[in-house]
């Protein structure tokens, strides 16, 4: 203030600018400046005067500034000023909302003036009002108006203001308005997707189901194809960066099934083809993968999976055959096709889980295609042609587990358990089989085989404990439970399976709690 005395004048002028005082952030900063200028213990006349001025301005802002006739009327009618201003605001919002609702019909004549000119002006005016709850109906109407006229554009500043208010969570809009915002404004959509991912993935133990049910994103994707395409692009890049992290894959799978559920609910209103929703995926795989296992009788699933495995195998072989080709564009194209096929598989990974379930209950001769599918899911790229070797390893693991779980003699063979633990630990030599793959097999063997529960529990407990994969085991069990619940089949076996899963889950959670305790103790000891 000493160096720029005119600043005080400027501040004073700002106080009376409604575009500054209507916006929450503007108001806050303005008041902060005023408090900054206030001296608690004024030392001289200037400071005293400043204090007086600040008090006067604030008093006037809050209590005066109305035109006299309105004041007199309010007084006679017995209406307090606050209520009056609130009513006028609501009435203004309602009147403006009515105007927005009228869609213009001047499509034919470009020179004809239409009422859509005011939409741009209204959206500009609403820039300072994005945090004002009373203005929410108007903002919602602006976002959701059907875009029939080229003049009915929304101001960029308006969309930016909405986007940043949405990011800092001071926006109070109803659901459909938020969906419209995402539709109009890419940054806000990206922000929403990334924050959902962060929320779902930081908590490694919980399943993203709950967060997804609360999120509006699946519904938004079902309503607007373009939103789903953007979301999928974000998923693709996250997936590429995540390098096979199971939690990311699981999230994508859950999101896609939520999306498909919402889409089914929407179908009677608008029929968007699946091809439009999944334009880059190999078309002949689309419907087979999107069909849910519960929509297929149990006997047909094996055949279906064999077919899927075969198709995917052919696709990858096509890519590999052309390796001799020097043309990089075609190579890229083939790589792209394999990636898209794999991405679709990740989105519909419930089939992979069905494959695992069938694997553990089938004869050794039938394992081939199912094992291939499982390995492809975990290792989509075939760098250095390692897949053949991985298949061999996979087969070995299956044999190992199969014989372990069929052993009825007690106590369990220690060396076999130990070799299993080694399999599950991350191995340095290439090509190694993903420990998660083996863990998945292990858990499914424990659940679905007819062997006694106590033996299965013991095996699972020992192996998981020694290999340290407690979290992952819990995750696999919970997701299996969810999938079976969804399928809702009523065979006599289901009950037994559910009980078994519950028992195993209890064991694993107890282990987790125990290891947490131990961790805490160790932590406190080291402190």
């Amino acid at each position: 203030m000493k160096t720029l005395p005119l600043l005080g004048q400027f501040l004073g002028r700002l106080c009376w600018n409604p575009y500054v005082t209507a916006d929450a952030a503007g108001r806050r900063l303005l008041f902060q400046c005023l408090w900054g200028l206030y001296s608690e213990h004024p030392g001289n006349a200037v400071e005293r005067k400043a204090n007086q001025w600040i008090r006067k301005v604030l008093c006037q802002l809050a209590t005066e500034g109305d035109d006299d006739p309105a004041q007199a009327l309010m007084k006679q009618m017995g209406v307090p000023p606050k209520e009056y201003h609130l009513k006028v605001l609501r009435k203004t919002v309602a009147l403006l909302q009515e105007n927005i609702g009228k869609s213009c019909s001047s499509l034919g004549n470009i020179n004809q003036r239409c009422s859509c000119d005011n939409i741009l002006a209204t959206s500009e005016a609403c820039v300072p009002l994005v945090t004002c709850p009373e203005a929410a109906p108007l903002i919602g109407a602006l976002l959701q108006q059907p875009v029939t006229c080229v003049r009915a554009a929304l101001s960029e500043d308006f969309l930016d203001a909405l986007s940043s208010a949405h990011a800092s969570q001071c926006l109070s809009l109803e659901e459909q308005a938020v969906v419209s915002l995402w539709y109009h404004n890419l940054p806000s959509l990206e922000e929403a997707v990334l924050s959902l991912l962060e929320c779902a993935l930081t908590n490694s133990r919980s399943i993203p189901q709950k967060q997804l049910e609360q999120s509006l994103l699946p519904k938004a994707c079902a309503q607007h194809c373009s939103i789903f395409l953007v979301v999928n692009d974000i998923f693709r890049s996250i997936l590429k960066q995540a390098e096979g992290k199971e939690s990311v894959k699981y999230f994508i799978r859950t999101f896609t099934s939520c999306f498909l559920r919402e889409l089914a609910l929407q179908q009677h209103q608008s029929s968007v083809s699946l091809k439009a929703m999944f334009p880059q995926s190999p078309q002949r795989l689309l419907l087979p993968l999107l069909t849910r296992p519960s929509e297929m009788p149990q006997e047909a699933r094996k055949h279906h999976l064999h077919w899927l495995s075969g198709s995917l195998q052919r696709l990858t072989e096509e890519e590999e055959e052309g390796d001799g080709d020097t043309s990089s564009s075609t190579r890229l194209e083939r790589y792209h096709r394999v990636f898209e096929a794999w991405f679709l598989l990740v989105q519909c990974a419930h089939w992979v889980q069905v494959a695992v379930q069938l694997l553990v209950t089938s004869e050794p001769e039938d394992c081939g295609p199912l094992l291939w599918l499982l390995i492809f899911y975990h290792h989509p790229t075939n760098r250095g042609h390692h897949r053949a070797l991985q298949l061999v390893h996979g087969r070995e693991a299956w044999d190992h587990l199969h014989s372990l779980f069929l052993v009825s003699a007690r106590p369990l063979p220690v060396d076999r358990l130990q070799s299993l633990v080694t399999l599950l630990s991350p191995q340095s030599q290439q090509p190694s089989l993903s420990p998660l793959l083996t863990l998945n097999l292990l858990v499914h063997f424990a659940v679905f085989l007819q062997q006694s529960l106590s033996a299965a529990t013991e095996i699972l407990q020992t192996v998981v404990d020694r290999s340290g994969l407690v979290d992952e085991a819990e995750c696999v069990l919970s997701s299996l439970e969810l999938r079976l619940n969804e399928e809702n089949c009523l065979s006599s076996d289901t009950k037994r399976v559910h009980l078994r899963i519950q028992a195993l889950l209890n064991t694993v959670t107890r282990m987790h709690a125990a290891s947490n305790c131990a961790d805490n103790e160790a932590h406190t000891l080291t402190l």
Partner: protein
Amino acid sequence: MEAVLKNVASTTELLAVAALSGEVQRWDKQTLSRAVQWARYCEHLFSRFHNNPAIRMLMEKQLQLTNQSLRAAFAGYIEVSFSDLSRCQHLLLVGLLKNPELPISIMKILFDTASPANTQQSECQDVSGFCSHIIQCKSACKVLSPLTDMSAVGVGADAEVQAVMLMERLDALLSQGSEACRTEHILDSVLRGFEGAAGHFCLVIAAALLTKRNSAAQSTSQDFLLDWLQKEQSVLQHMCSALPATLIIDLTKEHLKFRRAYCDLLKKWASDMEYSISEGEWVQPRGNRTVSFNRLTQHFLGLFETCPSLRDDVEKELNALKISDGDFDVGGLSVWGDLLSAVNK
């Protein structure tokens, strides 16, 4: 009842303390909260009892006593009347903000803009941010009002809200069985309050007459208003000359009484007109130039368009008047003749 009167007295004392004493230096957030709650309570009392003359009188008596003692205790004390209780929170706020002894910490609480305001339930609203929210409302209105002018729909939000308030008051007064002259007195004082903003007042009356009424009681109020309007010819005149044509047409469609009054007014305007040779047309006498001959013609045409049945009757009347003037077909001799020819062009 005694407890209520005591509370009213205490709150009035509270208002005085807030505005005029150094006690406020010791106030904290809790004290402020409680003060606002008491003010809210008084507003609630007002809304419950302002239509109840007996209780109203008791409260007014109590307030008289309290005012007396407070006048003696505080220099510069402004009296609180019963109708002031309707805006008790506002009075408290004004008093506090004008009190130089108010600690800055209290002011900061009132103007706090930190958390997004929860305006769902105004009853359980926290006192923090109280003033901030008022400012937000007022500024938002100012930001949005130019847009409503642009679209030129109806009378404007503030006039509509004021009209609703006016009609509610009239409904309350008339349903109580208040005497007609008392209600008229209130309308007169409202009119006086709009001194200098007669145009806005006309908008309010128009909006009041055009609000959708759902019950018979509510139509009585509009009827009463129309009767008052006929007595207050100056207001009617102003309305018919200043309001946009669309509004006048809506009014004539809705209310038969208005249509008649309007028609009579138009005829009166015409009969007052004299032919000015220098200007070459019919004008109103000097000192009362509200409407031109052209405009008058347009008024008649507008009226005939909305009420075609009226056209025949009025034309007959005009014709009769023209005949009484001598039945000349030359312009400039009879205002009725010229009107007829202008209207039938």
